[in-house]
């Protein structure tokens, strides 16, 4: 029982982190049709920039400055890279962002090397806020929850309650019409790309101390972010939130369970073979749920695509 409560909190932390990454990506994808392969790379840049800034000015300045720097870099990429490639169609755009992801990874290794970086939680948050049973809940995790929820509320407010948000929403569905009405759609695109990558950067800043800051961190999270936005429905902020939380809880509960597939086989009346290497089902007999945890989100994605191709909250086909 205690473990379930702890897992709920852990899954919430991880899910909200995914949300910060996928919120930007889903807006960029639905608005510009660009599948930004480099999105997780901006997440990595956020962590590395924040580490560099934190060595001079402390964690909090890193938290403030790094996402802005990443966002400006993202806007620059849109203005001077993507916008030029755009006229050649979607495939060149895809290849462009793919190349950019490789480039950023090489850049990071060139500047900071291949090792883990000692980027850690600020001392002020480095304590156990409370414990459930004997499991400590670190103050930093609670801090992550508050930052993510704050970002979600701010995004929701901007998108639904402000004039800028109206233009963005309109540009999502009818970019030509919005352009004809006299709005500067390329500027909106640049802004959305900048804010989206900046959010990814922010996710990197706060996730770096928890999940580790190393050159492989972008690849590790890259694919799962796409899964999130497909499950949630393209362009839907609520969809991104729900899908992120779903994946967060799913992987957390899977990893902490001790369920074995042998139990199913035993329940089916099969006998455990004495010589495992002779059995045709030997893989199934030794498989546990934690071992297949990381592929569960992909299975969910396939299921969603079959049943509801436009995602849980999506309004149009992916």
């Amino acid at each position: 029982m205690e473990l379930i409560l702890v897992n709920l909190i852990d899954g919430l932390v991880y899910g909200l982190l995914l949300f910060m990454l996928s919120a930007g990506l889903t807006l960029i994808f639905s608005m510009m049709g660009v599948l930004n392969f480099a999105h997780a790379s901006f997440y990595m840049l956020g962590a590395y920039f924040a580490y560099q800034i934190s060595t001079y000015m402390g964690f909090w300045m890193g938290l403030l400055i790094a996402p802005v720097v990443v966002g400006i870099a993202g806007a620059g990429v849109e203005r001077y890279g993507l916008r030029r490639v755009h006229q050649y169609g979607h495939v060149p755009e895809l290849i462009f962002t793919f190349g950019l992801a490789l480039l950023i990874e090489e850049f990071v290794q060139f500047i900071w090397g291949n090792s883990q970086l000692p980027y850690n939680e600020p001392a002020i948050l480095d304590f156990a806020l409370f414990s459930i049973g004997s499991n400590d809940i670190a103050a930093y995790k609670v801090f992550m929850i508050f930052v993510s929820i704050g970002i979600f509320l701010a995004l929701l407010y901007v998108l639904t309650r402000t004039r800028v948000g109206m233009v963005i929403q309109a540009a999502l569905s009818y970019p030509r019409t919005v352009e004809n009405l006299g709005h500067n759609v390329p500027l909106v695109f640049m802004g959305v790309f900048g804010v989206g990558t900046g959010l990814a950067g922010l996710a990197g800043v706060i996730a770096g101390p928890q999940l580790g800051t190393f050159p492989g961190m972008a690849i590790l999270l890259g694919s799962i972010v796409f899964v999130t936005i497909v499950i949630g429905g393209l362009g839907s902020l609520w969809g991104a939130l729900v899908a992120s939380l779903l994946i967060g809880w799913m992987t957390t509960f899977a990893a902490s369970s001790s369920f074995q597939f042998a139990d199913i086989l035993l329940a089916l009346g099969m006998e455990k073979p004495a010589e495992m290497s002779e059995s045709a089902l030997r893989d199934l007999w030794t498989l546990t749920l934690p071992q297949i945890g990381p592929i569960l989100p992909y299975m969910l994605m396939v299921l969603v695509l079959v049943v509801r191709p436009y995602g849980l909250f999506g309004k149009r086909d992916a």
Partner: protein
Amino acid sequence: MRKTVKLGLGAALALTVSASSLFAENIKIAFIEPLSGFMAGTGTSGLHQYEFAAETLVNANGGVLGGDMFEIVAFDNKLSGKESLVQLQVAIDQGIRFVAQGNSSGIAHALIDAINKHNKRNPDDLVMFLNYSAVDPALTNDKCSFWHFRFDANADFKMDALTDVMAENEDLKKVYIIGQDYSFGKAVAAAAVSDLGNKRPDIEVVGNELHPIIKVKDFTPYARKIIASEADAVITGNWGADMVGLGKAILDSGFEGPIYTYYAAADGITATFGEAGKGSLYLVGTDQLNPPVSDRAADYITAYKTKYPDGDINQARIVNVVEMLAKAINEAGSATDIVAIANAFEGMEHDSIWGSKIVMRAKDHQAIQDIHISEHTDEGAVFDYDNSGYAPVVKSTVKMAGADSATTCDMKRP
């Protein structure tokens, strides 16, 4: 313009050719390791340690055989078995007779297979494999070869030493074993279960878990499970990002017992754990830098840190490889008679700069030496890792670990 480039290239080629013929008496050692990609840091660090050891311990003392110098030639295997074999062939074509490799037992298996075949077909042009890090026990058991020498303790020896120390701790009642889901992780888990069962049947293994390798993003749920199991200690063979992720999650979740590891040091790992890992992280291995065993060892480390301020001697056994090779060549009286050098290695006793006596066991070519259990701490960390103030400091030692261990090796001698 084109012509000048071609001319320049030609001149450069000619220069390298003449340069290599000028220094033909150099004894070359092929260093086949990842020098690009995500493991490049480990490979480059190993290369520096080889070059420094060869330079300061052999060449500066007049070389071997009265004046022949050691030369380390680096080959990038991109951490791939296929690429390693290509690089091995390139090295052999260059007339190199000594091959040093250690990162990944899989690659070590591929290399020794290829070397066995090569030596069978070319008895006049033999090649020797100096394995300084690949710890799969099979390499000195079923798959043992006359041309292969292992200078690190194998995974079973390390677990044996580790469980010796754990068995002395009467408070230890429950142990959790967790590792990466591949051959090495499974070998560690199997050895831990059988060793603990033999030495302390009363210790309960409350968890024996494999997680997907380099796929887990958040280790927190694993840490929660470990705490819920009420384990007193954790054993893991994890390395790299999986080690950092797991260790941080366990410590953040409030675990207070010891975490026994194989690879939780250097390459940024020591700095990342810092204060949080103090008193919790333990390492099992053959290297002892802290406390320094002698002035000679201390001077050597200081000299290395002067040359590579950002580097660390994190594979100290490389020094043993270089010194013992020099000794074997001198004893054999030749740098080309590989059989004589191999015979000189067999049964060789060597007093390591790091304090341990080393015996190269003749029956399986496995070095027998002291194995240490070190604690990650800043107290007594004279030579820190990652310039972090922290380092593994030796707490207990198993003398000549595994000296009487059995081997299934059936050595085929030429």
